[in-house]
């Protein structure tokens, strides 16, 4: 529960819950696009599983965001009746699903960060965040294992799979900087012990990626210019399309129960 509201601002906590909820929702949505279209039946099932985990996390975080905000918005009001600039997800997760290499490399980059993040958040002073993190941590460890195995298979597979995988790593790399961004709201929560300073996770994140990419015979790009904007609501061109599709029924028939 949001007992810490006395010591942190409601806005900051709302912001964090949205950031985590929106990120999970948008990535879950992208993964769900594979259902029925995967490269082998086992992966249709596995990618659906990953998507279901993330949609479940999104529901928990968004419900909590609504509770913290205190204006009567539930998970669906927040998911279906906000426009792209109000979404706080990482840019990385809204990029189209691409080929199987892109999807798996994104899942690797994402889960290599979110596993240690949730592991630390289990000790959050906010008990709701801590409880959601405890469940999400187990899910992330599976996501990391599954995506690592595939990145290794593809990187160390054929010439074509190696090239596709390396391209995915290169294309996604500029989107990895955002996970380490800390704004004023986040700073406030870090100081209150609710949120984790992402800098503490950088070494573990790098270590995980080095090990997987090395085994996959893939090159980790030089850290260079990084994309930014998701957290502040300045998104890529893709989020608007995703939301237009996702929100279409609710927007066409507002105010009804489904």
């Amino acid at each position, binding site marked *: 529960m949001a007992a810490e509201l006395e010591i942190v601002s409601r806005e900051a906590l709302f912001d964090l819950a949205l950031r985590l909820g929106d990120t999970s*929702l948008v990535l879950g*949505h992208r993964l*769900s*696009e594979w*259902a*029925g*279209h*995967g*490269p*082998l*039946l*086992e*992966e*249709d*099932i596995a990618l*659906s*599983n990953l*998507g*279901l985990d993330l*949609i*479940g996390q*999104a*529901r928990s975080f*968004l419900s909590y965001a609504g509770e913290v905000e205190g204006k009567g918005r539930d*998970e*669906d009001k927040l*998911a*279906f009746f906000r426009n792209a600039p109000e979404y706080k997800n990482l840019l990385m997760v809204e990029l189209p699903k691409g*080929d*199987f290499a892109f999807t798996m490399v994104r899942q690797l980059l994402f889960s290599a960060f979110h596993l240690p993040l949730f592991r630390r958040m289990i000790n959050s002073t906010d008990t709701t965040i801590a409880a959601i993190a405890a469940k999400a941590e187990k899910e992330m460890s599976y996501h990391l294992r599954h995506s690592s195995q595939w990145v*290794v*298979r*593809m990187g*160390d*597979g*054929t010439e*074509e*799979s190696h090239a*596709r995988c390396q391209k995915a790593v290169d294309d996604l790399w500029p989107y990895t900087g955002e996970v380490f961004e800390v704004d004023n709201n986040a700073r406030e929560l870090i100081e209150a012990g609710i949120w984790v300073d992402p800098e503490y996770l950088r070494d573990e994140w790098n270590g995980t990626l080095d090990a997987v990419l090395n085994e996959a015979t893939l090159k980790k790009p030089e850290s260079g210019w990084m994309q930014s904007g998701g957290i502040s609501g300045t998104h890529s061109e893709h989020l608007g399309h995703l939301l237009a*599709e*996702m929100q*279409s*029924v*609710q927007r066409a*028939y507002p105010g*009804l*129960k*489904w």
Partner: protein
Amino acid sequence: MYTQALNDPSSKIATVEEGEEKLNDYFMERISADEKIEPNDWMPASYRKTLIRQISQHAHSEVIGMLPEGNWITRAPTLRRKATLLAKVQDEGGHGLYLYAAAETLGISREEMQQQLLDGKARYSSIFNYPTLTWADIGSIGWLVDGAAIMNQIPLCRCSFGPYARAMVRVCKEESFHQRQGYEILLALCKGSAEQKAMAQESLDRWWWPSIMMFGPHDANSTHSDQSMAWKIKRISNDDLRQKFIDATVPQAHHLGLEIPDPDLKFNEKTGHWDFGKIDWDEFKRVLAGNGPCNRERMEARTKAHNDGDWVRKAALAHAAKQAARKSTRKAA
């Protein structure tokens, strides 16, 4: 049903080869005694062939069936609906997987079966050649299509071939959950606004007749039914299953406040069953022959997924081969 193409009169089932009478007699004794036939047991070649066709068509139907429902995952109107629909489509994939595995016990590979589907040599249930145009269609598929599937599959749990019967036990459990989910989607719509109720009615109007066609031709026109009944692969006839389905479904429609699009539908006090109108078998044959609203799209989507996945499957094989080579080099050293 999901394997309705088996009723195609153009395909004949081979008779038991000469010299195998004794084995066949023993086989039929076991069938009569309701024993389960297992993969390593002797079975007539035609029994094996029939089962491979039936189980693989069933598997293909589950996999193709992911497409019309998958069409609404990204547009489900609430997060709960999104999660349950995604989980449902995932279940269908799971059904496909263990049905392929059941068929593999008969000596055919999944790759071979999938190639038969892509080549147009194997069929899938025609019901999935109809489009999902509104959210209500997700309700209708669960309620009617899964409902019809359950009617057919519950007797298959007692099918003479062990792996198929056992797969059906699990499939039926999940399907009945899906059916309740579908009905619950429609219930929410029917309790909702006039627009939502109209959406539900319009969906029922489109799905009703194709759903009752899922049981296949009338018994008199169903070529393979007799042999399948004798082998206890099939337990209940097409017409009996269809009647059971209609009898169960009509009161459910009434509870929703929806009208079944059949002016001849009437409860028969004498028989205790619902009498229904004439089925448009021309439509059934036309869609089965490839001319339904989505036949081409479904096969294109499946072919695209298969072709796009080719490099992934090759990568997995290449990596496995490299690993095996490295392992044997290490051993040698």
